[in-house]
């Protein structure tokens, strides 16, 4: 598309508008926070603890999401079965739940009086008020993001690569680990970045399901909310938000680089 055409200019305007609209509010947060306040926010013990808890719980959640989600997505991508499209729609539903409803839904399913409450208690597994509960809430809200990207990435795999692996003696697991995952890596990384970003910002479901206790269940978004409530806490809430945004941006970019299609940078094909 030539930029110097009517539509080219229109598209340019659209892109500028879209970028400005999405970036401006984020910039506005930074504009409200002086660099000094940013450092102060990091200096606060409780803020550091919340960030650290956020990092820990999101990492664990991402490990779970990837460890269970990748094989699950692989299967859902490759197998055709009746009701498949229904299943694919169902796993996207958590996306539309308002956060508080997601938390209540988790309580109704996994809380002590929930559907599986007895079974979990019997297994000695306590989630509510526990860091484990935070992880569960994070997995619930972020898994759909990873799953849908992973399914798309695996579905786009060249099936002959998997067949080639089989004729070379690779069983299903080896084919998955050495052929499918490396080939789908850019898509998996994009899904992971998205899920991680969503988990880092997660607020409502965590609060309702796991609660909010410093050092145990109070993640950064909860700490921001709490700071926000404190008289005069507005700026420190913004400062903590800014830190969270920087952290998230780092993770987004880092994970994407990890998934960057290195094959593309291979030397050009010459004969």
């Amino acid at each position, binding site marked *: 598309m030539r930029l110097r055409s009517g539509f080219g200019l229109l598209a340019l305007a659209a892109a500028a508008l879209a970028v400005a609209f999405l970036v401006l509010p984020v910039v506005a947060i930074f504009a409200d926070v002086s660099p000094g306040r940013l450092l102060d926010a990091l200096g606060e013990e409780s803020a550091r603890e919340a960030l650290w808890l956020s990092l820990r719980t999101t990492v664990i959640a991402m490990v779970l999401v990837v460890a269970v989600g990748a094989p699950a997505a692989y299967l859902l991508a490759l197998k055709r079965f009746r009701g498949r499209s229904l299943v694919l729609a169902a796993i996207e539903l958590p996306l539309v739940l308002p956060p*508080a409803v997601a*938390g*209540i839904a988790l*309580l*109704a399913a996994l*809380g*002590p*009086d*929930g559907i599986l*409450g007895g079974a979990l208690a019997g297994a000695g597994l306590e989630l*509510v*008020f526990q860091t484990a509960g935070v992880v569960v809430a994070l997995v619930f809200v972020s898994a759909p993001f990873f799953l849908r990207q992973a399914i798309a990435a695996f579905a786009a795999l060249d099936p002959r690569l998997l067949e080639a692996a089989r004729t070379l003696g690779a069983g299903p697991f080896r084919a998955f680990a050495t052929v499918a995952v490396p080939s789908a890596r850019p898509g998996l990384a994009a899904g992971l970045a998205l899920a991680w970003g969503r988990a880092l910002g997660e607020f409502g479901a965590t*609060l*309702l399901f*796991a*609660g*909010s*206790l*410093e050092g145990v*269940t*109070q993640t950064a978004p*909860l700490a921001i*909310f*709490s*700071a*926000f*409530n*404190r*008289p005069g*806490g*507005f700026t420190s809430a913004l400062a903590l938000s800014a830190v969270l945004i920087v952290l998230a941006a780092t993770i987004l970019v880092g994970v994407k680089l990890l998934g960057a299609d290195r094959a593309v940078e291979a030397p050009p094909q010459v004969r």
Partner: protein
Amino acid sequence: GGSGAGEPTLTVLGASSLTEALGRYGESFPGAKVRSSFAGSDQLAAQIEQGARADVFASADTAYPAQLHRERLVGKPVVFARNRLLVVTPPHGTVESLADLTEPGTRIVIGDPSVPVGAYTREVLGRLPASEQAAILDNVRSEEPEVTAVLAKVAGGAADAGFVYATDARTVAGQVRTVPLPPRLQPDVAYAAAVVSGSSEEEDAQRYLEGLLHGAGGADLREAGFLPPR
């Protein structure tokens, strides 16, 4: 709120816990159309601080109106209602009295110190003997910045007890039991409201506050379980 050619419109920012009472009051408010927006008092304060145009700010505490008043963002606040704290427990729970809260292993949820209900809860606990206070605080499993989260956990059986306002307990009526606090422990829970500076309908806003104190609004508050301002 802007004023049309006909009835003026009054924009009321109310604390979430006032949803029922102010909702009903607004519907029957004479002489002006009332639009009410309910959210956490802190969120409403943030909106006013960010310049949102409203006419009345009805908070679930007195601190936010006082703070905004100091910043000249609202007029002089008036206390328009009071509330009581009580303990909610699951219908088949183990907690039947205040004393049970000190039992080790009892799962208690209270408000985050940054929200009024959390601050008041600490005031209540502060009036208990030091050992009891420590035992209860030891049992606190979560400090929730939203009352919904406290109620959801008690109603869902995830917590054995929670400290909330009497009015909040009504939202889960039937799903929880209530344990009242003895009067000597009751804090002075006051709700203050103020007219937002620069309101274009100042007269109506003032009239709205009057109604809360002495008129139909007061009745609606009483009906929703609030106590009259002393």
